[in-house]
């Protein structure tokens, strides 16, 4: 495709195609979109974040997709979100109000080594690609590697397991780069990490049953977000804290972001509930992205209206 209008949003794409898409989007919207490089993966691939901004010194709202590389519908949805943002800004009143108050920071391929590996070698790869000294098994689960209850129950100390937490918190450059960026930014108000599949919307905590201080607000907002999401195709989501909704998981992304002071921290599990698992047919990419966008809009609007 020569421009982002001709990009095929209803197909899965390689890493090179996604990088080319990002470059086109930036070139087409130079006053709205910039591409930041926040670090490098273990295999030295750049970690890119698209920054959508309509003015200086705004608070930030973070969205990441694809931290688990095999969850292909998430990267594909991230691409669609990026295009949706540039289409809706200046046209959709509610969204324009959001972007006039907050920047959106979108990391489409959070685990590029893993994503490349799913295209070339092992479609079912989930983790990073860093070798583990003393083990023949490769990679760390980047959603168990955060400094939030790190090493506790709900993560494995075995490098051969899919939920291996890594040797230490933030040992993975894919995680550490986000940590450094979030800390240096210092004004991120919402943080959404997107996974698939299970159809859930969850807030902290995963590592402890202790409710977060803002639980009533986060719970109510989650309820409204999934209601809005379901309004498009009737897709049913469950919601609640990670530990009560799915399982105990220590070292998770949004537990760390919440403990950093980012109140509106959520994690999505997109379609489906089990017919295809991580092999969701490409014709479901756009419906998945469309309905998820409605959920995101609810959370972004609430964040904009309740900046703290």
């Amino acid at each position: 495709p020569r421009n982002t209008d001709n990009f095929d949003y209803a197909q899965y794409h390689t890493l090179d195609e996604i990088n080319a898409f990002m470059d086109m989007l930036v070139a087409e919207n130079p006053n709205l979109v910039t591409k930041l490089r926040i670090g490098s993966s273990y295999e030295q691939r750049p970690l890119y974040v698209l920054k959508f901004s309509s003015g200086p010194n705004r608070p930030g709202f973070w969205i990441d997709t694809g931290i688990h590389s095999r969850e292909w519908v998430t990267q594909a949805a991230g691409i669609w979100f990026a295009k949706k943002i540039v289409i809706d800004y200046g046209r959709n009143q509610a969204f324009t109000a959001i972007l006039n108050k907050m920047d959106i920071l979108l990391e489409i391929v959070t685990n590029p080594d893993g994503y490349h590996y799913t295209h070339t070698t092992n479609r079912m790869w989930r983790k990073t690609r860093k070798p583990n000294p003393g083990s023949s098994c490769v990679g760390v689960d980047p959603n168990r590697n955060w400094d939030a209850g790190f090493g506790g129950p709900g993560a494995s100390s075995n490098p051969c397991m899919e939920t291996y937490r890594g040797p230490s918190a933030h040992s993975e450059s894919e995680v550490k780069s986000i940590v450094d960026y979030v800390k240096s930014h210092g004004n991120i108000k919402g943080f959404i990490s997107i996974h698939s599949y299970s159809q859930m919307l969850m807030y902290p905590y995963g590592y402890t049953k202790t409710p977060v201080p803002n639980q009533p607000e986060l719970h109510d907002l989650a309820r409204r977000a999934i209601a809005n999401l379901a309004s498009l195709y009737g897709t049913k989501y469950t919601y609640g804290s990670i530990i009560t909704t799915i399982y105990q998981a220590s070292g998770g992304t949004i537990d760390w972001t919440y403990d950093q002071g980012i109140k509106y921290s959520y994690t999505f599990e997109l379609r489906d509930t089990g017919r295809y698992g991580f092999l969701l047919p490409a014709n479901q990419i756009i419906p998945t992205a469309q309905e998820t966008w409605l959920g995101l809009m609810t959370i972004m609007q609430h964040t904009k209206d309740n900046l703290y």
Partner: protein
Amino acid sequence: LKAFEGDKVLRILAKNEDQISLLQDLTEMDQLQLDIWKEPTHPTLPVDIHVPFESLQSVKAFLEANEIEHYIMINDLQALIDEERHEMQSTRFIE
């Protein structure tokens, strides 16, 4: 390329906490090389496990011996991956 010929994804429906506990034991058996898509947590949530062909008999025997309800969600994982790859190649060719 890692191939998944004959690998199945089983959907397992635990009846109670005892069965969840048995499934948790199953997922910790390294030698079976199971890939847990949905972990055993509580009886209301299904468990999905990608079972390599070599481990299929052991896993089925374990589930049947413990009377744990299950069915095949994906019959041949490689077939589904091939289908996905074919679709992507066709799209690229058309473009």
